């Protein structure tokens, strides 16, 4: 009986090894194979002692071989480790790391989303006789070994919503959050609240969560990971991966196999390597702070030492985060240094005690440190080619603006506001009084005056003679646009895609792309337009001032051929990145604009784009201008930059959060196609998102949804009307009215506290 169990265990271990090295031929594996079979055959004939000896020898062999194989692990092997059903999962951590826990809102498949598990756990610490239970909120994906309903840890939007909810609960309770990332990616559906919008909400919410957050990454797949992984400290298991896209996905994009085609395994291996997805890579690039070592070939549930180590590290890191923001700065430093020394000496922290709840001042410090931490990431991944002289000038300018804004808006404005509010009240009281007193008199006067009163010649003239009219709108009446699309140059007719439904007639290209601004006059379908059209027709003529133009999209991972592709894009568009940031005016109101251009690498966001976006948000905040993000199109995060791109999701969202918290008005407008990472973070977090008609907004494209979920995707699934109905965006604007609507939005939404005129 015992033998059988043992054989089974060894066989499982063997299967695991075989699976991980997927088909790769190895003498080691064959050896283990033979030895295990041999043992299974011989064991029943041996006595207990012999059997034990043999088993021990075999286990030693396994350990030895595993140790040898460990050295050969490729990144793709690690991906297979992470996905293997034998790998430990969140349940194992709950059982082995915490001294007790209560699952919140789930019991196996009875859960709003079994892929996301929330638990309140505690860790018991003993200091002498005193026993303290320190509470934490545990949030994480549950891959659930082979349990299909867990969806492999792919959280649905409502799962992420639950996670955010309980992180907020932790904030109320003032206990730290431990977030575990075991997800291949978010489940790509657009149903309320929608994958992208929910991830955006999570990132936005976590950006300023006022409790320590520690994230531990095993499988960090793209947006799904970011939805819970924005943390003060990010730990990563040594055999985990953290990537912007699965290696298969990256290979599919690289290899372009076409529908139904398969990508060769070597390409997937290569992609996994080049994408720099391992723990060491991410540590080097700075996107995780520390690696939690795992046993050879990755931890499995029976590696109890591993869990002990994890517990130790968690305690240490949680303590550190708390200490680093509590108390007086001098003491903080001393304490931290002392702890580091004792950690190095191998002391554990079970018996020491550090309070994890934070007083308000420490909470503020915690949040601002988190923002600083993310602000400093990925800086070297983008090339800033701004000349030194201009850099110095802009630093000086920024400083001046800060002083000016402080003075003008914070000091003067507040005083003036108070005085004027008081005056207004007094005035309105008086007016009311006078109105009452005068009404009878007025009536009388009117009765007498009517017959004799004659209209002045002036008044009659306003009704019958030519009036002054120099409205800027006049210029655009009848489609006299400042910029005409290049499509208007062709002598041909163009069919509307809705002709079958709405019976739209073909339009002559010069009319359609000229006067009609690319809008079908019958059904209102918007044909795609160049971004230049918007630059010239939305903002006041000549008011655009670009900045940070010299921040250049780079190739931080040194991807093959990619440098050349970037160069081609730069040449073709005349821009150095997919993001253009500028100041502009609209009917005299100044604002800062960030624009993502579909023409430059599909409008994908990498380190340079993220950096520019952040600078724009910061500039808007500094100058107290409204901030407008016009998305001419974005295909998502630039996968060729790997985690350098992915990290822009939290980075930019945090910049937006800082801006909005400081009182800024942030408006987003989507055009053509906007998908994935950017929508799921710094765009989707805006309270005012609008879509240009006929645009598509969503998380994953139809093909990806169909492939991932196996569900058919109806036509127009991502259309802005659907997005509006789902509550993802707040309105739909006609391209021709963008100037008018935007200007009105600035005036109506930008109240005294939102935006500064």
């Amino acid at each position, binding site marked *: 009986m015992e033998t059988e169990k043992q054989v089974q265990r060894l066989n499982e271990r063997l299967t695991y090894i075989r699976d991980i090295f997927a088909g790769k031929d190895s003498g080691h594996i064959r050896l283990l194979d033979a030895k295990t079979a041999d043992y299974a055959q011989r064991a029943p004939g041996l006595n207990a002692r012999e059997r034990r000896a043999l088993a021990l020898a075999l286990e030693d062999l396994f350990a030895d071989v595993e140790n040898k194989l460990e050295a050969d692990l490729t990144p793709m092997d690690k991906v297979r480790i992470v996905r293997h059903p034998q790998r430990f999962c969140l349940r194992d951590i709950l059982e082995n790391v915490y001294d007790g826990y209560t699952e919140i809102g789930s019991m196996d498949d009875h859960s709003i989303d079994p892929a996301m598990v929330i638990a309140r756990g505690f860790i018991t610490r003993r200091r002498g006789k005193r026993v303290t239970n320190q509470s934490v909120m545990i949030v994480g994906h549950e891959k659930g070994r082979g349990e299909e309903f867990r969806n492999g840890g792919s959280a649905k939007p409502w799962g992420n919503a639950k996670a955010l909810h309980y992180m907020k609960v932790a904030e109320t309770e003032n206990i730290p959050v431990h977030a575990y990332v075991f997800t291949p990616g978010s489940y790509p559906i657009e149903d309320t609240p929608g994958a992208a919008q929910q991830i955006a909400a999570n990132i936005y919410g976590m950006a300023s969560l006022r409790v320590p957050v520690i994230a531990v990454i095993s499988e960090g797949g793209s947006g799904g990971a970011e939805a819970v992984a924005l943390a003060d400290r990010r730990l990563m298991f040594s055999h985990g991966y953290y990537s912007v896209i699965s290696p298969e996905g990256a290979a599919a994009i690289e290899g372009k196999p076409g529908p139904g085609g398969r990508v060769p395994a070597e390409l997937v291996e290569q992609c996994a390597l080049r994408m720099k997805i391992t723990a060491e890579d991410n540590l080097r690039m700075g996107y995780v702070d520390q690696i939690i070592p795992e046993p050879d070939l990755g931890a499995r549930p029976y590696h109890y030492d591993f869990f002990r180590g994890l517990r130790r590290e968690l305690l240490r890191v949680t303590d550190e985060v708390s200490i680093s923001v509590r108390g007086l700065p001098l003491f903080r430093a001393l304490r931290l240094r002392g702890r580091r020394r004792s950690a190095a000496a191998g002391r554990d922290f079970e018996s020491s005690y550090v309070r994890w709840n934070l007083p308000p001042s420490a909470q503020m410090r915690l949040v601002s440190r988190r923002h600083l931490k993310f602000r400093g990431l990925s800086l070297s991944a983008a090339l800033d080619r701004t000349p030194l002289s201009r850099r110095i000038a802009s630093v000086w300018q920024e400083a001046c603006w800060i002083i000016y804004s402080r003075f003008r808006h914070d000091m003067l404005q507040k005083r003036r506001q108070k005085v004027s509010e008081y005056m207004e009240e007094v005035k309105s009281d008086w007016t009311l009084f006078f109105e009452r007193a005068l009404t009878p008199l007025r009536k009388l006067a009117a009765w007498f005056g009517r017959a004799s009163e004659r209209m002045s010649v002036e008044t009659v003239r306003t009704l019958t003679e030519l009036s002054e009219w120099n409205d800027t709108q006049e210029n655009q009446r009848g489609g006299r646009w400042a910029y005409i699309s290049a499509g208007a140059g062709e002598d*041909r*007719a163009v069919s509307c895609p809705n002709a079958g439904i709405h019976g739209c007639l073909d339009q002559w290209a010069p009319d359609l792309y000229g006067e009609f601004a690319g809008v079908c006059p019958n059904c209102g379908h918007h044909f795609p337009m160049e971004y230049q059209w918007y630059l010239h027709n939305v903002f006041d003529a000549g008011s655009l001032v670009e900045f940070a133009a010299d921040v250049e999209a780079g190739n931080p991972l040194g991807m093959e051929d990619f440098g050349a592709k970037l160069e081609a894009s730069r040449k073709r568009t005349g821009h150095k990145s997919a993001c253009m940031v500028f100041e502009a005016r609209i009917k005299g109101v100044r604002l800062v604009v960030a624009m993502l251009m579909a023409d430059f690498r599909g409008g994908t966001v990498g380190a340079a784009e993220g950096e520019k976006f952040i600078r724009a948000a910061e500039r808007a905040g500094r100058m107290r201008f409204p901030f407008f993000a016009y998305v001419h199109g974005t295909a998502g995060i630039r996968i060729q930059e790997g985690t350098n791109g992915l990290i822009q999701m939290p980075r930019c969202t945090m910049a937006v959060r800082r801006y909005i918290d400081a009182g800024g008005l942030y408006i987003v407008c989507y055009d053509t196609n906007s998908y994935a990472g950017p929508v799921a973070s710094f765009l989707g977090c805006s309270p005012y998102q609008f879509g240009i008609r006929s645009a598509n907004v969503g998380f994953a494209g139809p093909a990806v949804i169909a492939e991932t979920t196996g569900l058919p995707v*109806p036509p127009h699934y991502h259309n802005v009307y659907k997005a509006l109905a789902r509550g993802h965006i707040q309105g739909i604007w006609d391209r021709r009215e963008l100037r008018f609507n935007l200007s009105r939005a600035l005036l109506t939404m930008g109240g005294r506290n939102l935006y500064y005129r």
Partner: protein
Amino acid sequence: MMFNISAMLEEIKASPYEEIAVRAPHSGFATFPDGLAPGAAVSGPAGEFREKPGTLLACIERERNPRAVTCPERGEIVAVHRELHGSFVEAGTELVRFRHFLSRGEVEARILKKALHLFLAPERARYYFIPAQDIKIKTAGPRSVSVREGDELFIMSRMKRETPLRYSGPEGILYAVYFSHAADVDARDPLIGVCPPDLVEQVEEVVVRVRTEWKEKF
């Protein structure tokens, strides 16, 4: 009302298809795809949402804008007017003729059209159901509606003017709708088929018979 289901079924079985002429939707220069020849199988729009267009039958280029003419139903090509290849065709010129083999539902509808009481369009116009009934029909299907002599049922739209129209005929269940709001209905063409209570049995027999006896081709 008496009629012979078997005879009608036999009659349809003798020619189990209808010939559909595909005409040029507008003027222009026509081209036909290679390989399109009599005998070729063609298909109509497919996919769960009918999002995939039918087989390409021809292409008409007008004002440098080529537009595809695709097949509306599945069937088999009878004739391709290749002599028009590359020449200017006027709107409405026949391009391709194909045979569409009747599906079970279509056969059923054909026979029922003879069995049901048909309410005919009084004038050439566009017709709509009045909003109250329209909602019912859209949500629960036409058979959820029963009609009686004098019921206000339609709106007749002609030359931008709309007039209400009352149903006249026997009381019964609205069994079939023969018009769509997108197209004109000729005078004396049927608008709806109504099944009076005494006919229910017979109508159901038609349905059963067609279901058992009609074998769909393709």
